C-alpha cells in the first residue's frame, strides 16, 4: 500500500513542479539573505557606537524580532498593511520584507558582537598609526571580525532557509504549497501521496541545510586554531 505511493513523484511533471517550488523558496531566502548581509554589516558597525541614542532604538528593533515569532510578523505585515494603508503587497514581497528585517537585525548583532569582541589594542594601535576610521575598519577590524562572524552568519542563513517553510502559511506558492496541490490532485489515485510528498520535501530541506551547517562547523574549527 505504502510502496505504491512513491510513484506519485514520477507521475507527469510532479517532481519538476516541486523543484520549481523549491526555487521559489530559495529565491526568497537568497534575496533576503543578501539584503540582510549588506544592511546587517552597516547597522552592526553603527551599533558599536557608544551613543545611547543610537544603541537603544536598534536594540529595541532587534529584541522585537527576537521576542515575536516570525510567523506572527508575517501575519502582521501581510494583513495589517494592506487593510489599513491601501497598499497591495503580494505575499512574496511580504516575505521578503519580513525576512530582510529579521535577517538584518540578527546579522547586525553578529557583526556587532564580532567587532566588540576584538581586543581593544587593535583599534588603539591602528589609531596610533594614524589610520583614518575607514582605513581602520577596512584593514584592521573587518578582516578580523569577518573570521569570527562568518560561521554564525552561515548558521543564521541556514535558519532563514528553514524558516522559509512558514511562507506557505501566507500563501506564497513555494515547495510546500506545490506539494499540497499535488497531494490534493492525486488523493484518489494515490492515497498515500502525503507521506511521500512531505517526506521528499523534508529530504530537500535537509539536502540544502546540512551542507551549509557542516561548512560553518568546518570553518569554525579551522579558524578557532
Amino acid at each position: 500500500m505504502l510502496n505504491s505511493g512513491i510513484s506519485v513523484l514520477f507521475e507527469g511533471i510532479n517532481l519538476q513542479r516541486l523543484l520549481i517550488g523549491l526555487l521559489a523558496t530559495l529565491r526568497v531566502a537568497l534575496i533576503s539573505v543578501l539584503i540582510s548581509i549588506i544592511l546587517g554589516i552597516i547597522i552592526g558597525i553603527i551599533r558599536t557606537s557608544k551613543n545611547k541614542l543610537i544603541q537603544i532604538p536598534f536594540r529595541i528593533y532587534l529584541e522585537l524580532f527576537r521576542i515575536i515569532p516570525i510567523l506572527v510578523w508575517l501575519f502582521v505585515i501581510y494583513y495589517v498593511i494592506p487593510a489599513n494603508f491601501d497598499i497591495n503587497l503580494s505575499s512574496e514581497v511580504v516575505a521578503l520584507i519580513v525576512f530582510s528585517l529579521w535577517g538584518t537585525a540578527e546579522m547586525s548583532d553578529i557583526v556587532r558582537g564580532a567587532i566588540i569582541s576584538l581586543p581593544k589594542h587593535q583599534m588603539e594601535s591602528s589609531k596610533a598609526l594614524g589610520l583614518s576610521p575607514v582605513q581602520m575598519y577596512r584593514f584592521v577590524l573587518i578582516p578580523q571580525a569577518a573570521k569570527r562572524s562568518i560561521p554564525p552568519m552561515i548558521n543564521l542563513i541556514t535558519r532563514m532557509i528553514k524558516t522559509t517553510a512558514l511562507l506557505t502559511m501566507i500563501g506564497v506558492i513555494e515547495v510546500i504549497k506545490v506539494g499540497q496541490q499535488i497531494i490534493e490532485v492525486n488523493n484518489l489515485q494515490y492515497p498515500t501521496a502525503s507521506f511521500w510528498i512531505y517526506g521528499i520535501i523534508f529530504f530537500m530541506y535537509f539536502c540544502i541545510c546540512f551542507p551549509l551547517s557542516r561548512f560553518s562547523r568546518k570553518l569554525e574549527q579551522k579558524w578557532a586554531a
Partner: protein
Amino acid sequence: MENLTFDWQYMIDVLPHYKTALWLTVKLAFIGIAFAIIVGLICSVIQYFKIRVLSNVVQVYLEIARNTPLLIQLFFLYYGLPKAGVTLSGELCGIIGLTFLGGSYMAEVFRSGMEAVTKSQIETGKAIGLSNLQLMRYVIIPQAFSYSIPGFSANCIFLLKETSVFSGIAILELTNTTKNLMGIFYKTNEALFMLVIGYLIILLPLTLFLTWLERRVRHAEFGN
C-alpha cells in the same frame, strides 16, 4: 488611514478565546521543553562519553532534527504518518515535533557545557576516588549546568516561539486562534494586536526570569 481604529468591545468579547489559546500554548511549550531537556540530556551524555554505535545514532538524529524546518516535521507527522498506519492527535504531534527539534538543540548546548568543564576538575575528581556516577553528579553536571544556561535560555525562548508553527496542524494555539478569528470577524487589527500582546505576556516574564537565573547560577562557576 481611518480604518486604523480599535474596537475595544470586540477585544473584550474574544478575550476568553485568547485565554484558552494562551494556556494551551504555554502547556504545549512546557511539556515540549521538558521532554526536550530529557532527550537533550540523554543525547549529550551519550555524545560526551562517546558511547559506541549509540553516539553515531545520536549524531544522525541531531543532523536531521537541526537541518529541517519544524513545519515540515509536523506535516510529516500529522498528514504523512497516518498513511503509514500511525495516527496521532494534533497536540501529540506538536509535542513530539517540539521534543524532536528541541532535543537536538538542548543536546548541543549541554554537550558544549560539559566539554567546558576543565580536565583538571575531572582528573581531581577521579584522584579522590569518585565513581563515574559521582563524578557526573557532583562535579560535571553542576558546572556544566551553569555553563549551558545562556544557550539553554535562548533555546527555551526559541522553542516557545516555535509553537506558533503549530497553527499549521490545526492546534488552536495563539496564532491559529487569531487566524480563525480574523477569518470569522475580519477584525484584523484587533486580532493581531491581541496576538502580539499574548506572546509578550508569555515571553517577557520568561526572558526576565531566565536573565535572573543566568546571573544566579554564575555562582556555581569555578573560580568565582
